[in-house]
């Protein structure tokens, strides 16, 4: 890390922390959503589907603005959370994680849903005749068999989250050490006179991270498929 200035290391670590938090908190919710969307039909389903996919098509800045309106310290929900639970999202790294989690949520849901749909329903029937109830079948059969898709979705979401800019800068601003993630640090370096070298170094890190993510996803997928006997 001696190649990097302390502020750059800080931005890198913060980025990893924000993305890891965003993905791991969103994952269980994404699995639950994918299950609901893949097996069931319910009234208002198209609306729910649209809402889940909204972050994919909405400009991130709009997403950040909406978050600010709802969760800002003086906004109704944000104010209540701060007053009663001491939770503050605005201008904090947790807010950056929240914004990243929402933006990358559709990636996870889509990948998990595809994986769930690809699990042969006949296997679940076989398990039923062997005495397995719905939850038993889900946790011992469907979910393990869908695991490669779940992991791929999580890694893709993690990689996408590392690049989030608009929603973060709008919602939680650009505070060094708190909300200045890698993309924000690159932006700031380019704004400062003589910051090109720093920007180039940060860009190199971003590229390495992206490559590592893609390779890891591929490797994990192959390992898992082998373990699942395919």
């Amino acid at each position, binding site marked *: 890390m001696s190649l990097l200035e302390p502020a750059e290391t800080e931005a890198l670590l913060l980025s990893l922390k924000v993305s890891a938090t965003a993905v791991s908190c969103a994952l269980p919710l994404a699995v639950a959503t994918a299950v609901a969307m893949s097996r069931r039909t319910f009234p208002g389903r198209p609306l729910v589907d649209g809402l889940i996919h909204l972050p994919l098509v909405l400009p991130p800045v709009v997403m950040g603005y909406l978050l600010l309106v709802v969760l800002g310290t003086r906004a109704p929900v944000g104010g209540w959370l701060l007053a009663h639970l001491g939770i503050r999202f605005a201008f904090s790294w947790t807010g950056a994680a929240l914004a990243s989690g929402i933006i990358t949520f559709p990636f996870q849901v889509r990948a998990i849903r595809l994986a769930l749909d690809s699990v*042969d329903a*006949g*296997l679940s*029937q*076989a*398990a*039923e*005749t*062997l*005495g*397995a*109830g719905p939850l*038993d079948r889900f946790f011992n*059969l469907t979910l*393990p*068999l869908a695991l490669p898709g779940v992991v791929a979705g999580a890694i893709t979401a993690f990689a996408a989250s590392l690049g989030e800019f608009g929603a973060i800068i709008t919602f939680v601003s650009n505070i060094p050490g708190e909300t200045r993630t890698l993309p924000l640090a690159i932006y700031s370096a380019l704004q400062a006179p003589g910051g090109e070298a720093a920007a180039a170094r940060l860009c190199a890190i971003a590229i390495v991270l992206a490559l590592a993510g893609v390779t890891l996803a591929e490797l994990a997928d192959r390992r898992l498929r082998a*373990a*699942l*006997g*395919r």
Partner: protein
Amino acid sequence: MSVAIRIRHAFPGFSLDVDFEVGAGITALFGPSGAGKSTIANAVAGLFKPDRGRIEVNGRTVFDTAANVFVPGRRRRTGYVFQDARLFPHMSVETNLRFGWRRHEPRAGEAEIAHIVELLGLGALMARKPAKLSGGEKNRVALARALLSSPEILILDEPLAALDSARKREILPYLERLRDEARIPMLYVSHAVEEVARLADRLIVLKNGRVAAQGAVFDLMSALEFSEITGSAPYGSVIGTTVAAHNDEDGLTMLGFDGGALAVTRLPQALGARLRVRIQAEDVMLAREEPTAISANNVLVTRIAAIRLDRESHADIQLDCGGTKLLARITQASLKRLALAPGAEVFAIVKSVTVDQPSASRD
């Protein structure tokens, strides 16, 4: 030990309306694709809920629309062997085998597990993943997995349909042993007449969602109506025999049945062993006078019970051999030349006899 099945269901363009019972041994649900066989199997297993009906397994009502009873599939204790085996790909053979076993009380003991593993020849496969098994091995694992869940009824849905003939020959002896050993009712879904002739004790013939005929395999296969119902050429007769004598000098074994005996090449079975033989209708020649100088070992004295002409040039003849029914297929020209009529005595020359040997043919 019996299963009573009464189902009515309307599909778009097809309706199912059946009422029959399945007792001990193998009952074959026989019929062409689309006759409703798998739908019935799924209804018994609780994987499909028909519009109306009642299903009772060993006195326990598992489905009754009148009383609003629907026991879910997981509590029906159905051992279901699917055509595509449906092994869990992420589990080893052993974990697959114990999947149903673990979820059912009372569980089979370790000795019984070992017995079933031995019966189906799975000892060397236990640590393997399903992807590393051949088609025949997969089916055997599926069969063992179903058996180990202590089922009250075993459903086999076309378990051989996806296999080539070599793999079929590999599985059939196991199924025969199972039929002879297991005491639970078995429902065998199939559209292959040869499998049914070899395995089934009773036949339920399905056609367009209705039971077109039912009865013991020995009676039904030799009935002239059978080919009419199934719309195919008659298969032949299935006869239950016992080993009556061994003639080591000639290398022959005599198989006795009601009304006669058949000589076949020397078999390893002990005297008194029960064996099923199949004689295809095309392998039976008829003669009005006793043929003397003839190479065939088996010439049976029979009486013509019934004759049925098909639309082409064949005549199917049902023969009565001391109570046992045989089928012969000759040409209508021969029928005319020999002036055969019901009641006439004829000599049946049996050219070929297939003996099904459950345990001896196991390699």
